[in-house]
């Protein structure tokens, strides 16, 4: 077995997060060396980056730094290819970021981006998509095997160190059951790991459609060009309102179900605003705070941008569910092996995940010597060794603090990431210039 596979298989070792892994740093370096040696000939963009940086092999973790992709690499295709339905071109683009050949995908008669993703998935490319605020979607390829490995990782990491999935809970996911998005994939994994078959509930079986996002983007482009009529904007917004109303109805129905079963050890995940709606209903029914089964698993998250929430929404949600199990993890679409948080509010990593803490500019690798007592703040980067379908190296926009100490205050092995994760803003200050993009302000806003 290669060193890389040895590290990935370690997730199945009982107590993988609890005990130090012998000689981990050297083994991670060796695994990165192995992986790069294979991938550089398979992934076009990685080869280009390696050539530009003059890196023929990985001899120290520093060599990985110029090989980390930013999230923008996964949306570097021209939007006009999507708008004009040039799916063969999109496959050609996807190839530069993929290990497996994408020319096995039949794009004949593809109607929209969801169709295209569906065809890719049929051909074994388990594409995940994300939608940025720009309206342009990222597409990340991985293999069916990668999907299975992610589920396996989740079976150990999700709930750690408080609870482990045992396929015996009623599960409530306040989102769609289907769709090429990492949050839905995570729900599906958690459903498989925690859910009692037949007792797994999603808010809707209406799949998440990426074409809705690209339609909104196309509408914005036409708004900028000045070719949209008021009726077209109204039709688009009416559709969005109708969908919001359907989701609202579904949430009301699910709320009744959740509240009825609150004394059972249910598994519940939703967004902050959704939890606030559940609380509102519970108050009307006279259900007091803290009336949930203490073995219930509840998590909340999601963006709160553009949602009207009281300033103390987190506290309200915490009080309402009371003393339930609240596992938390740090991860992102680009990462397969997300990092669970311990009782001491620190994030721990699996052996198959290499952390690369960088300076703010993302150019220099930081180490324990770069901060007082080995506690160092920087930009988070990583190489996820799991992926067979693409390169797992990424530089993020997250500002994290890593404690390089070999032991976490919880007594388990370090290093750990502190619970202080924020975003690196484009610039810390208020730089003002008179030049700008034709951004949303001219297109005016449309509801999505």
């Amino acid at each position, binding site marked *: 077995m290669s060193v890389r596979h040895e590290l990935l298989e370690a997730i199945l070792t009982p107590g993988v997060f609890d005990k130090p892994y012998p000689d981990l740093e050297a083994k991670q370096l060796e695994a990165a060396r192995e992986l790069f040696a294979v991938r550089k000939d398979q992934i076009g963009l990685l080869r280009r980056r390696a050539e530009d940086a003059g890196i023929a092999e990985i001899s120290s973790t520093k060599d990985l730094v110029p090989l980390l992709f930013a999230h*923008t690499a996964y949306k570097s295709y*021209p939007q006009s290819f999507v708008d004009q339905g040039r799916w063969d071109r999109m496959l050609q683009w996807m190839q530069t970021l993929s290990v497996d050949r994408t020319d096995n995908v039949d794009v004949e008669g593809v109607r929209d981006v969801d169709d295209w993703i569906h065809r890719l998935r049929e051909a074994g490319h388990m594409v995940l998509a994300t939608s940025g605020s720009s309206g342009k979607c990222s597409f990340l390829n991985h293999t069916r095997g990668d999907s299975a490995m992610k589920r396996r990782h989740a079976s150990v990491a999700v709930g750690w160190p408080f609870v482990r999935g045992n396929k015996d809970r009623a599960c409530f996911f306040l989102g769609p059951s289907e769709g090429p998005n990492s949050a839905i994939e995570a729900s599906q994994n958690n459903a498989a790991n925690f859910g009692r078959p037949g007792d797994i509930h999603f808010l809707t079986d209406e799949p998440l459609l990426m074409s809705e996002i690209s339609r909104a983007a196309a509408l914005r482009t036409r708004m900028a060009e000045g070719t949209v009529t008021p009726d077209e904007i109204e039709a688009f917004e009416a559709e969005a309102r109708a969908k919001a109303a359907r989701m609202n109805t579904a949430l009301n129905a699910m709320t009744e179900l959740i509240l009825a079963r609150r004394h059972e050890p249910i598994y519940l995940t939703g967004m902050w605003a959704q939890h606030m709606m559940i609380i509102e209903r519970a108050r009307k029914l006279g259900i007091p705070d803290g009336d949930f089964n203490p073995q219930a698993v509840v998590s909340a998250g999601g963006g709160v941008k553009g949602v009207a929430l009281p300033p103390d929404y987190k506290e309200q949600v915490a009080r309402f569910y009371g003393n339930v199990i609240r596992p938390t993890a740090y991860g992102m679409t680009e990462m397969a092996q997300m990092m669970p948080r311990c009782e001491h509010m620190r994030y721990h990593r699996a052996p198959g995940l290499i952390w690369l803490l960088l300076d703010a500019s993302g150019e220099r690798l930081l180490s324990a010597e770069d901060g007082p007592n080995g506690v160092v703040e920087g930009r988070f980067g990583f190489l996820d060794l799991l992926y067979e379908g693409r390169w797992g190296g990424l530089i993020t926009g997250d500002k994290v603090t890593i404690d390089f100490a070999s032991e976490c205050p919880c007594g388990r092995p370090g290093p750990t990431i502190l619970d202080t994760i924020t975003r690196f803003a484009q610039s810390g200050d208020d730089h*003002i210039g*008179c030049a700008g993009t034709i951004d949303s302000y001219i297109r005016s806003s449309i509801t999505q």
Partner: protein
Amino acid sequence: MNIQANPPPLPVPHVVKGEAIYGVEQNYGRFATPALDLNAMVWPRNEPAPARDIPVAEIIDVLVAVGERLTKDPDGSLAEALERSVKTNPLPRDVLERSYASLGRIFNRRLMEFQVEQELGGADVIDGWREVTTTSGRLARIRAFPTRLVHIIAGNAPGVAAQSVIRGALTKCVNLFKLPSNDLFSATAILRALSAVAKDHPVARSFSAAYWRGGDASVESKLFRPQFFDKIVAWGGESTIRGALKYVGPGFELVAFDPKTSISMIGREAFASEEALDNVASRAAFDATLMNQQACTSSRFQFIEGSVADVDRYCARLQAKLGEQRPTASATPIPLPSNVRDELDGLRAFEDEYRVFGGYEGRGLVVRSDAPVDFYPDNKIVNVVCVADLRDAVRHVSVATQTVGVFPAKRRVELRDALCSAGAQRVVALGLAQPEGGLPHDGFYPLHRFVRWVTDEGDRD
């Protein structure tokens, strides 16, 4: 242990009604300012603007003296501001040096007289009451009356601060400048020169400048009120404009120098000869690299008619010229942001449709394509877009398009109405993107918008 020592924060002075204030009570990390004294920075409505009755001619004399002082810099305070700007402004040193060296020339007597003449229709209407007779025979007098302005100025070119001082002074308004973090020193250096040449002069007392973090509600919700200011003059940045909009209402008006993008349009006449092509590429490179392509007037997209082979010849020449040093551009390489590099790497998969000229070292880069790229070309990057006819490019023009440089002149005349209908505000000959004073800016006359147009109607006495 290797702890990186942070340099001490740079002191940023404030100016309160003409008087420079020094202090470092408020620490922002890279720099520090005096404590903000909001009471000192507002002008109550019941107090007349100090410069209201000073003749424009006298104000121009003062401003000319400011320009002379900035050019001579006898006490080295401009040089000191330059050194500090070099540390905080993203522009390279040589561009800043040349901008600072030319600051004084902006305070040009003929130019300021031209501004008053063009934008207000003469000094008489701001110095006093201009009488007219209406169609019914009523006697009326019109005056351009000073207002109270809070300016959110842009920091991408020191000239913005100079132009804002000139406009604020010529209109006799009272002015508070909110300093941008990318140019913390130019405005105060100019105001210190103003106080030096005209100590306690009403014009000097009409200006304050301070830094607070843009959007800081604890400051802005108190200041941005009709009790204290009549208009907010907001430059750039969607977030600035949106931030200002929160406070705009009756009695507190927005004058927006919106964020803008500028473009070029090049007709097939450019390929008439090698000489012509070279000349066109030089002009286009000049327009693209204005303030190192950080200005709203800097060209970013260039639409061109021609065969792919011809357009590629143009792109190669343009790319070579983007890296040259000019008065408004530096030859110093600008590192390519990683997101732009990702976009370019993505496009390289389609070399037939997207050809990239130049490397990633930041000396200028051109992308040739059939449709505009999705990213924002910045830091000496130009997207050259092939079109069959320049008229096809008009659909890419909107109210966010400021300057359109066109070659040759005949095509400019043909296209200008269509461009302006689509929203463009300024159509110029290719190579003339650098603006001059006294002409409309972003579709309006700034001096005209700064003042309040008031009337006095009825018989003289």
